[in-house]
């Protein structure tokens, strides 16, 4: 396979100004991936700071309610800052420090990656700016304040669709301008090489832990893995360790108001191959190659493209991709809250929605692991608004 590619997907489609920085980053990443001191420091912080391993929890009442396969939840919502995003943010922040950068920047949609990066910056002692679309600042107001509390500047992106893709554009522009002093902590398995591989590796701890934990709990591997797919990092993080095992894997995209309405973010159901923000992948575009607007109730899935390893896994038939609509995700959000006392992030609720469809179709001896990528505290206000409830 060509370097930086997953089959025909991936690559490094960026302005020349950034090329030397990406080459430097790739070399640093390859070096520190094998560096004992770095790995030791990372492992120590994963344990004492993030609180890893996160538990693998058998959702008994939820399982009984669905009446089919056993559903386990990989509790990334219990990681420090409330989502899997910290696994990558902390890894990259440590790396940025090693390569001598004084400032880090990040894009954020749901605000979880922004919070995670601001947290990493506070922990390590780096300056931090986070780009966020105006739309997302509104629906994730709580996280905006959290980032500010952590000492980061939140920079509003009021151009384009004012969501995640525009925040990535602004981050890339900032990085192009300040590349000498700044590292761009990209939040998902997306963008130019080496980000898709590097972020996947930092997230792959999810699957490594889950494998051990399910073997301990059940004495065997699960039958299904289910994860939501925004850029695709929590999904790759869970799937990666299991790719060689005979297990079915399902990635769940945001179906928004339904594929037929055009208001969604289901790149596989409604998109085609293109090149966007640094890599060749599936994306939502018009016939002239312009990027289409997207919609999802969850800011973290509201994005026009997907990380390049996913279409590769799809073409190979290794992972199946489906979607959950806003309404299905909202119903899952409430059901899991009531049956288990766990309020999932709206992003993760898309994976839960798929489990709700899948479990009843399977016999009771089957096992599903759902990646509960984040907790839903950040979404409580937004869900209340949708239900017309004033807080």
């Amino acid at each position: 396979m060509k370097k930086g590619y997953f089959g025909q997907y991936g690559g490094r489609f960026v302005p020349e100004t950034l090329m030397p920085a990406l080459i430097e980053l790739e070399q640093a990443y390859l070096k520190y991936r094998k560096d004992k001191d770095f790995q030791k420091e990372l492992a120590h912080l994963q344990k004492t700071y993030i609180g890893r391993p996160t538990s693998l929890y058998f959702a008994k009442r939820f399982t009984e309610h669905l009446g089919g396969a056993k559903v386990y939840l990989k509790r990334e919502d219990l990681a420090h800052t409330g989502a899997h995003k910290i696994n990558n943010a902390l890894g990259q922040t440590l790396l940025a420090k090693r390569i001598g950068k004084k400032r880090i920047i990040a894009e954020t949609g749901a605000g979880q990656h922004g919070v995670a990066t601001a947290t990493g910056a506070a922990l390590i002692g780096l300056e931090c700016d986070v780009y966020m679309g105006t739309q997302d600042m509104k629906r994730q107001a709580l996280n905006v304040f959290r980032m500010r509390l952590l000492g980061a500047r939140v920079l509003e992106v009021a151009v384009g669709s004012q969501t995640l893709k525009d925040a990535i554009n602004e981050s890339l522009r900032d990085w192009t301008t300040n590349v000498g002093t700044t590292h761009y902590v990209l939040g998902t398995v997306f963008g130019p090489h080496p980000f898709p591989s590097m972020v996947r590796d930092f997230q792959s701890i999810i699957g490594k832990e889950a494998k051990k934990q399910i073997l301990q709990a059940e004495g065997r591997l699960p039958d299904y893995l289910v994860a939501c797919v925004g850029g695709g990092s929590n999904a790759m993080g869970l799937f990666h360790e299991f790719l060689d095992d005979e297990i079915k894997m399902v990635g769940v995209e945001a179906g928004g108001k339904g594929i037929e309405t055009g208001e969604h973010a289901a790149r596989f159901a409604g998109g085609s191959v293109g090149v966007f923000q640094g890599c060749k992948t599936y994306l939502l575009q018009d016939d002239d190659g312009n990027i289409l607007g997207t919609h999802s109730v969850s800011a973290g899935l509201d994005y026009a493209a997907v990380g390049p390893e996913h279409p590769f896994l799809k073409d190979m038939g290794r992972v199946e991709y489906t979607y959950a609509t806003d309404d299905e995700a909202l119903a899952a959000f409430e059901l899991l809250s009531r049956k288990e006392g766990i309020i999932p992030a709206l992003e993760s609720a898309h994976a839960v929605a798929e489990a709700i469809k899948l479990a009843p179709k399977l016999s009771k001896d089957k096992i599903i692991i759902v990646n509960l990528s984040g907790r839903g505290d950040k979404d409580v206000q937004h869900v209340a608004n949708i239900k017309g409830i004033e807080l």
Partner: protein
Amino acid sequence: MNRIEKVFKKLKAQNEKAFIPYIMAGDPSLDKTKEIVLMFEECGADIVELGVPFTDPLADGPTIQRAAERALKNGVTLKKVIALVKDLRQKTKIPLVLMTYYNPVFKYGEERFIADAKDAGVDGVIIPDLPPDEAGKFTRLAKNAALASIFLLAPTSTDERIKKVASASTGFIYYVSITGITGAQLLLDDSIEKSIKGIRKISDKPVAVGFGISTPDEAKAVAGVSDGVIIGSAIVKKAQASSDKEFRGFLLTLREVIK
């Protein structure tokens, strides 16, 4: 020889420098763009850069972002820009270079794009998010069609990058004068001259400089150390904010100082 190469050869023989103005096609309309291109030529431009609007222009600053938004609102697409070039060819022989992001070209189909662009009378293509590392097929197809594939170098480029970019570039090499995006503040020190000397040690292809050049003084200084000056955001701004007469005056002043 491609029209662009001819222009640089002629200028070199006369010890002159290229004036390369940029305009976003379709801002505020394709008819107006046509007028502006002809005005560029009347005012002594050597090569014209035509921007193709894209929804997510990540190498561009606010001025060109907004110009692209206006053009997209008018329904301008890569296809329509190619048709505009065909139309312009009834009136002018000035070398025309398209500046487009890669996805519209990818979606159009590289083979078909190069054939149609060539047929319409396009002379060269600049794709800021397509480094030579990813452009093997594109460069090969462009070469066969004698269409210039113009790649960019930046202040951050290492010698290794300079070698790669210079060898893939045809027509000229585009040196990005700032570590940043279009329309940002230019820093006029000796770094541009030093970088260009570095490029010249490795390649004898013409080097034109762009990004952030906005005043006649800056244009003059950059012309002194390069083979050509590309002016984008400043012209887009001027075209929008001033009368035809003022705009023409600005172009003539630029032409005057670029030598």
